């Protein structure tokens, strides 16, 4: 069963084809990694799938419904959530509040009760905060709950974004370089976390440069080069694909991958 299906996606900026004819599918509980050299169009693809850019061609189906061109918040309401490569956290809010915003779709949000702070609003607030704290624990940020997010270190922000994305209880989770800037221990934790999420039946699409992590965790890998699909398959197939070795991994990467 497929939950997210992208078909023949293409977009160009000022004549440059940033993404050109890319297709992929991912099923619940599966981890699909998208790899490729810098400028291969990975993040652009994410931006199209999450509704931030409008693709110039191609379609996107979420749970068998055509969602091409829907705005990001509508996609979020249908169960798509994501993190960003260059952090997009709410700097002036605390870590806990960041995750609470992630619960937005799970909360009742009407204006008048909010203005007069009815007891139901207070109760809901308490529940949301409890749920947010649980998520912070799961990404190892329990102690940072009431710290302004803007003052957290880079790696912590990365995990905070994951917690925020998970707070929405998504069916599909797009992670854009979750391990970037993380040390080995933190990467290990993220690896663990992603597996856990997938085991719960969430479809995970991962863009990541850490080949060790990618090879270890992925069910399937899609390789992009200059906006075009280069290869697709299991980690083993991709690793042994001479085109991939040549275009992307190089000898060093190949050795690294072999060791993983």
């Amino acid at each position: 069963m497929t939950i997210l299906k992208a078909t023949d996606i293409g977009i160009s900026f000022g004549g440059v084809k940033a993404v050109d004819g890319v297709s992929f599918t991912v099923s619940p509980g599966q981890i699909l990694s998208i790899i490729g050299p810098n400028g291969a169009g990975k993040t652009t693809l994410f931006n199209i799938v999450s509704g931030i850019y409008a693709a110039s061609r191609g379609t996107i189906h979420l749970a068998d419904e055509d969602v091409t061109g829907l705005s990001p918040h509508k996609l979020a309401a249908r169960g798509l959530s994501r993190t960003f490569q260059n952090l997009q956290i709410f700097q002036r809010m605390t870590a806990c509040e960041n995750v609470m915003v992630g619960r937005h779709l799970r909360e009742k949000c009407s204006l008048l009760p909010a203005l007069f702070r009815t007891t139901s609003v207070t109760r809901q607030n308490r529940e949301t905060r409890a749920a947010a704290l649980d998520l912070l624990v799961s990404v190892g940020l329990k102690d940072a709950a009431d710290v302004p997010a803007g003052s957290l270190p880079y790696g912590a922000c990365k995990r905070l974004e994951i917690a925020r994305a998970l707070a929405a209880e998504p069916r599909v989770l797009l992670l854009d370089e979750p391990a970037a800037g993380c040390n080995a221990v933190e990467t290990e934790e993220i690896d663990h976390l992603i597996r856990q999420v997938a085991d719960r039946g969430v479809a995970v699409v991962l863009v990541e440069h850490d080949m060790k992590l990618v090879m270890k965790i992925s069910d399937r890998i899609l390789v992009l080069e200059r906006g075009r699909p280069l290869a697709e398959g299991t980690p083993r197939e991709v690793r042994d694909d001479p085109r991939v070795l040549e275009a992307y991994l190089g000898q060093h990467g190949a050795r690294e991958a072999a060791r993983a």
Partner: protein
Amino acid sequence: MGALLNQRFVTLAVLAAVIAVLPLVFPSSYYFRVASLVWVSALAAIGLNILMGQAGQVSLGHAAFFGIGAYAVAIGPTHLGIPPWAALLIGAVLSAVLAYLVGRPILRLKGHYLAIATLGLGVLIALVISTESRWTGGPDGMPVERLTLFGWRVSGSYTWYWVTGALLLVGTWIALNLDETPTGRAFRALHDSEVAAQVVGVDVARFKLQAFVIAAVYASIAGSALAFMNGFINPDQAGFLHSVELVTIVVLGGLGSVVGSIVGAAVLVTLPQALTVFHEYEHLLLGLIIIVSMIFMRNGIVPSLSGLFLRRARS
């Protein structure tokens, strides 16, 4: 959570105490008048702060809604025979409807484009007010009937001190309520990162619009209160310079801080009163003070000072 609840309570208690105690030290009715002006400006600023400080959307035409509220209570009773209190409500509804209608296209704009669009809206409304003199008395302004509530004729600077003070308390209470709710969080989230707010499901356009409407209603009610209090109104209250004054109050006090908006209003309203002793140097000094305080307290008075105290306390 408990601490936050407390903070809200403390803020309200301190504000109520200040409003209650000030009359003990006021030597003349002039002081009551100035203080009432502060309360009214603070009310408008608190609303604008929800839009600018929380949701991060600038409005350089906000005095227009202040003017709509003011002229609603002037025109309604005088020309249409509407009871003054009903005119206040009608003004607030009119402001909300207008903000709702123009907000959708305007709030799609960002940064300086949003600034010029709100500025344009403000100038247009001010122009209509000063041109349609049949209704508004034109540039000279028009008198406003006294407010009567259940047979009680609200008049005198002493009475209005308490009425505007109570209005400010309610306005502060509502603004503080909003902060810790899904709506308030959505405002702050879209301020920090619109795109991140969108991908967690925040309908950015809807929440910007809500903030705009809330701010418009605050300004409208403040405008009505000022018109009642003065018994007279002129188009300057809806004009560009008053819009600028409101923005300056919010930024000077500290964007995002409810207390900041009140402090900002206190400074910016009392300053010109204090500077009148310098006669012709008044504007020069006002401009100078604005520049200097924005340079040295660029985050606004309240955040800058509280930051200073926190650092002192820690060291």
